[in-house]
């Protein structure tokens, strides 16, 4: 089912959590709301669930306005951050609860619960209580409970944040499988970019209650529309170089670089660590720096460099360290990998 958020605003007292935000979510899509904590992403989720009432704007499910409906009548499935299973009920009763509240018949409830338990692979756990389950199992029960009612939309609130790293990877794939098999429109709230990029069809990058950028994962990574998105997406993070732009020249201290002529005044050059090529020089964009710190990260090696442009980070993506501490090092980057932002932080492209 399509979900449309139309100019929604939600504030708590003097604090505006979501500010005049609009978004279209397509039927069957898995969309991720990504942003740092406090950016309003959970507020949007709770507003869609009907737990919060909007100050302004509408929420439409398949073209029907549900903004004034209570949660009970919206038919949404929610997986909460800590799963919010009912500790006094068995797994079976937890999953059956939404059906029971709809007065479905015993046999129907039994059939649906078992079906869902098969799908989420917890059939053998139905008689247990939540306290006897591992984190991953609780997660599956929570998913089963959310999906058993055939929800119009499935809402996932930081669903993987309570799991350990290994389980997180497998649950990512698991949730994606369930979503694909059920075809339910899904909204995932997360602050973890890996979670967003690996799972989502589209990512909504949020900042301070508004949408910074919407797009497919690679889009957002390759062409962030402002400094916030550029800085938030990518690990290890992008390096920003502040400088002055005038008539196609960008100056940082004594160093000058060619830049786009539309840039005037304060400007920012952003370079992703993996696009800085070490030990090679070009006609343009070639400099020499000194290695100030080496961080081996297993497969990759991260170098911190002191350069005429300031501090930079660069990634060597294969092999073992080829440089040592305090060693002078030449580096450069390809012009098409450089990202330029104007004084307001907006992206400027050629």
């Amino acid at each position, binding site marked *: 089912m399509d979900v449309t958020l139309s100019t929604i605003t939600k504030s708590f007292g003097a604090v505006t959590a979501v500010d005049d935000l609009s978004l279209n979510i397509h039927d069957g899509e898995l969309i991720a709301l990504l942003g740092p904590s406090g950016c309003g992403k959970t507020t949007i989720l709770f507003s869609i669930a*009907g*737990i*919060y*009432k909007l100050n302004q704007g509408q929420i439409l499910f398949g073209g029907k306005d549900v903004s004034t409906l*209570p*949660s*009970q009548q919206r038919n949404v499935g929610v997986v909460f951050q800590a799963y919010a299973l009912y500790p006094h009920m068995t797994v079976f009763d937890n999953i059956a609860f939404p059906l029971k509240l709809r007065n479905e018949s015993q046999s129907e409830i039994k059939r649906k619960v078992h079906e869902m338990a098969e799908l989420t692979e917890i059939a053998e756990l139905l008689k247990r209580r939540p306290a006897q389950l591992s984190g991953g199992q609780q997660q599956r029960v929570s998913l089963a409970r959310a999906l058993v009612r055939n929800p119009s939309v499935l809402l996932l609130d930081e669903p993987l944040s309570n799991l350990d790293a290994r389980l997180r990877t497998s649950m990512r794939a698991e949730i994606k499988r369930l979503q694909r098999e059920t075809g339910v429109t899904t909204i995932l709230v997360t602050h973890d970019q890996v979670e967003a990029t690996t799972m989502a069809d589209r990512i909504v990058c949020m900042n301070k209650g508004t949408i910074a950028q919407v797009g497919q994962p690679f889009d957002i990574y390759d062409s962030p529309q402002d400094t916030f998105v550029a800085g938030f997406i990518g690990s290890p993070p992008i390096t920003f170089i502040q400088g002055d732009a005038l008539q196609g020249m960008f100056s940082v201290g004594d160093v000058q670089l060619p830049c786009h002529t539309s840039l005037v005044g304060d400007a920012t050059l952003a370079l992703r660590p993996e696009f800085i090529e070490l030990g090679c020089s070009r006609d343009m964009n070639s400099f020499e720096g000194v290695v100030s710190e080496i961080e081996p990260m297993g497969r990759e090696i991260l170098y911190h460099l002191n350069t005429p442009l300031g501090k930079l980070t660069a990634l060597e993506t294969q092999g073992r360290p080829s440089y040592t501490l305090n060693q002078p090092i030449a580096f450069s980057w390809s012009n098409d990998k450089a990202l330029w932002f104007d004084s307001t932080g907006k992206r400027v492209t050629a």
Partner: protein
Amino acid sequence: MSQNYRTWPILIFLTFMSLILFLLYFYFLLDTVTNQAPGTIWPSEFTLEHWRFLIEPIEGRQSIWRVTLNTIIFASSVTLIVVFLSSTAAYALSRLNFPFRSAFLGGILVLHAFPSVTLLIAIFIILQLFGLYDTLQGVILVITALELPLGIWLMKGFYDTVPWESEMAAMTDGASRFRVWWQIMLPQVRPGLFALGIFAFLSGWGSYLFPLVLAPSADVQVLSVYLSSLIDSLGRTDFSLFKAVGLFYMLPVVIFYLFTQDKLMNVFGGAAKG
């Protein structure tokens, strides 16, 4: 709270259920400064005559100030002793290792749940045996003892929340266990000391039955006993006077209540959790 349920029906229901209390306490305040014509419910005039007891003693009775002084001595002594004894005993029970520790703890907990009022008769006789009957000291000792299980249990709870690391650090820095208690632990349980202090003061200030039985005579009367004997002897004639005396008596309670309501809730809650 979520916004899926309407709250106004709840509001109306609660207001209705609380009507008697509104009525009782509203007229409690109103009657102390007004007069009503007999048989009517609305005040007809403003007056301060019900407060005359502050200046001249009610006929045949102690001055209110003497009684108030007794009550202050009584409640503050109880407070000081309870806070001191609870803070030492609770530290031992919370942090020190010694034989029968858990038996002591269990004993304190049983006493905490145990209804001390059943011991009234025996305590009455004990005070007579020791010659402490009808003295302020006697009733101070008794009320102190009765508040101790609660006090120890409450303070133990506060000590329990202080991280062990701070105590370990102080010990490795070379402080003796006593010094650790005095300089490291006590400052960290200060909120507990305050809470217990307020609680002990209020319960001393409000206590009636034990002072009534153990220290009834006029010289050592406290306000509760004074007020109840006033009501008994003047009968049903002068509710406004009783309420004025009552409001005077209740002032410290009201003050503490207004400023420490949240803490008080916690203490009442904690007091029962044992």
